[in-house]
């Protein structure tokens, strides 16, 4: 194995092993050796985050572990990103994400955000307890093509429908894919309120949006 491959492996391992300090020097060494930043991101950091997500799906990792893995990934990203070439910047699909009004639980939403960023999406995070109209304003202002709605509370599911109704009323619905997720939500519910899809986990959310966007 040559030095580049070893460093890529080490970047990936730093993410999986929650080495959020060590990854900084590893990423610096990778750049100093003159290897392309884009490959460090894709075959190092993203590879590690995907492995961490697998461990999460298999119940070997839980939320604390996944959060630290993502810290490591972002720390590595901070080192590599300034070294990206112009051609590495492709137009990213923008996703507006938020927990709908009436609910303030955001651990699940944060995991979805991390996994979507890992997969190369640009996230606009509106936070928690977000009024329906704020999603619409954000779509207008950013030109986002995906809206991701989360809730853990069955009482706030009505507000997901309101977001879709507002998108319809504003004539924005055709250009925007709406995905929903969270404890009380089901695929049947998503269909019932006219959403484009439902995902049961953060990893599934990435697959769902990839499918809807056609990548």
């Amino acid at each position, binding site marked *: 194995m040559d030095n580049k491959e070893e460093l890529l492996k080490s970047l990936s391992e730093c993410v999986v092993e*929650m080495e959020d300090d060590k990854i900084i020097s590893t990423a610096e060494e990778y750049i100093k050796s003159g290897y392309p930043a884009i490959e460090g991101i894709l075959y190092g950091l993203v590879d590690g985050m995907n492995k961490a997500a697998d461990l999460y799906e298999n119940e070997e990792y839980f939320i*604390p572990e996944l959060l630290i893995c993502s810290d490591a990934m972002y720390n590595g990203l901070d080192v590599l990103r300034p070294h990206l070439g112009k051609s590495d910047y492709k137009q990213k699909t923008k996703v507006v994400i938020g927990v709908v009004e*009436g609910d303030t639980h955001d651990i699940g939403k944060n995991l979805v955000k991390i996994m979507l960023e890992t997969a190369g999406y640009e996230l606009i995070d509106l936070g928690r307890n977000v009024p329906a109209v704020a999603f619409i304003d954000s779509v207008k202002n950013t030109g986002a093509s995906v809206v991701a709605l989360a809730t853990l509370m*069955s009482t706030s599911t009505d507000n997901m429908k309101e977001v879709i109704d507002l998108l319809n009323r504003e004539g924005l619905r055709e250009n925007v894919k709406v995905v929903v997720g969270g404890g009380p939500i089901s695929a049947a519910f998503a269909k019932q309120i006219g959403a484009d899809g439902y995902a049961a986990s953060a990893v599934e959310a990435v697959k769902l949006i990839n499918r809807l966007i056609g990548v």
Partner: protein
Amino acid sequence: MQDQMTPAQRAAAIANGSEVDRLPCNPNIANGVARVYGCKISEFNHNPKVIAEAQMAAYRKFGCDGLRIFTDLFPWAEAMGATVAYPDDDTADLLKPAIFSVEDIDKLHPANPYKDGRLPVQLEAMKYLKDLAKDEITCSAGIVGAFTNAFFLFSTNKTLKFIHKNPEAVHKLCRVSLETCKAYAKAALDIGLNPTISEPMSSCTVVSPKVFREFSLPYLKELVDFIKSYGSNPVVHICGQTNKIWQDVVELGIGGISIDNVASLKECKLAVGSQTKIMGNVDPGGIMYSGTPQDVRTKTLEGILDAYDSPKGYVIMSGCSLPVETPFENIQAMMDTVREVGYPVCPERVREMIQSSK
């Protein structure tokens, strides 16, 4: 259909193995009692009499086997310095944790339940409730466990990461939380209510069983032992999936374990039913809030069939606190189904009832 016994008589009879009129059932109405009583939820923040009367109103309407003073998850963190938002007519929510830097952990003090935040309001509510409930129904005092409270003192995300990055800090947060929990539990016991412990952050949906055993279980044990030393035996509720930690929790020698709808009642019965009473677990969102009375009936019957023969007893319950706007007819459907099944439970008849209700 009328109950033939009071909840207190029913509980006593079950405890000594006598005949009863039906299985105990606690829909876990929570702040929805405001809808029964006709008050705003924000009144629970300052008016102890209203808390107690609203609980009593729910009991009178539905005949549920359990009343609890427990308005939200945050009075203990609030009493230690956290900031809580009080929506006009919804459940209180954590706005800001008590501290923002790890150095400030040492500045945290255990709360004084007679003085700090809304804790005195809750204690007053317990006295009113005790007077109203007399010997008809035993009342409990809800409390969050030390591990869960730790997250409200120092931001959830940061505390989650500290589990690996600064375990000593998490232990410190748990330790000071535990002192608050004990002081509050003691105050409730002095009034004559039995503490029940909710530990949502201990869920296998959030942290691994290994993390639970290292950071939550020791404090849970200390709190349970403390409560038991006063002759009361707390029920423990943990949200989400919990199958991998049932054994740990039950080995504390608790009065019962209450499980959420994502866990399996049948599996729970087989695993720990011979050691403690099991309670659960109709889906509070998908069925109780969003379903029809028919859905509630079916799920209640399925739960009964899964767990009626649990060796140490079974209480039909929702998987977690009900959403505030849960339709009354769904709560009524749960109670009526349990009454119709009666006692002793005849599994063939329950199966027939499930068949005919489909």
